[in-house]
């Protein structure tokens, strides 16, 4: 398969993830959309690394996967705290900082 096929697939997954981030009300649902977008970027990195025979893209993917896992852990901890304080994880209701 040519490089363009992989990049198009990644662009589609990225667009779907963006749709999820924009339309979900639940904070956990928004996080799931972000996961999809990060996955699409990983596909891009690996595809470019493979087609340029360059190891750096593979290593970058390794780092982004690890950092994403840390991000999810912290993000969900924040979601749990918000739920404990406000009894909701609806993103529209979280307007504590509104003046």
């Amino acid at each position, binding site marked *: 398969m040519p490089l363009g096929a992989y990049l198009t*697939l990644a662009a589609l997954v990225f667009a779907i993830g*963006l749709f999820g981030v924009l339309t979900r009300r639940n904070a956990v649902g928004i996080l799931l959309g972000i996961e999809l977008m990060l996955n699409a970027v990983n596909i891009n990195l690996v595809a470019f690394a493979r087609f340029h025979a360059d190891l750096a893209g593979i290593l970058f993917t390794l780092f982004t996967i690890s950092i994403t896992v840390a991000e999810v852990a912290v993000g969900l901890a924040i979601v749990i705290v918000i739920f404990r304080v406000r009894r909701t994880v609806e993103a529209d209701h979280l307007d504590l900082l509104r003046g």
Partner: protein
Amino acid sequence: MTAEMLAFAGVAVVLLASSLGVVLTPNLFHAILYLAVALVATGVVFLLLDAPFLFGVQLLLYAGGVVTIVVFAIMLTERLVGTSIRQTSRYLVNGALVSLAVFVGVVGFLVQAPPSAPRPAWPGDLTVAVGQALVGAFAVPLELLGVLLVIALLGALYFARSEG
């Protein structure tokens, strides 16, 4: 129609269908199961790109770790049974328009790009090369990554600790 094209088409269909399931299903728990399928399908794409090591990392960290954490978070914030887990979406039309615009913009660049060269030969064993690079040129970023993971662990513990 080579075997590689068939494999790519199959995994692309699975990946896109499960991604749509993640963003469209009203049940948040089903969305996580779809996300697990999408993550495994992404790992298979890595396999097609001759990166079996990343396939393993994807399965261990994403499909294993992330899905487990998210399931726990949902169990703590919602009830798994009943209707409370159902969730509605909003701005469906606007969200679809923005996503479509982003996709069209990216594909516009892809169409303009010159046709790519065929896949070059991969030098040697990828896992060996990754291991050598991690203790060689990428040793400092690897250590920083360890520091970041410790900080994230402590931060998550601090946020989620019980009061008092």
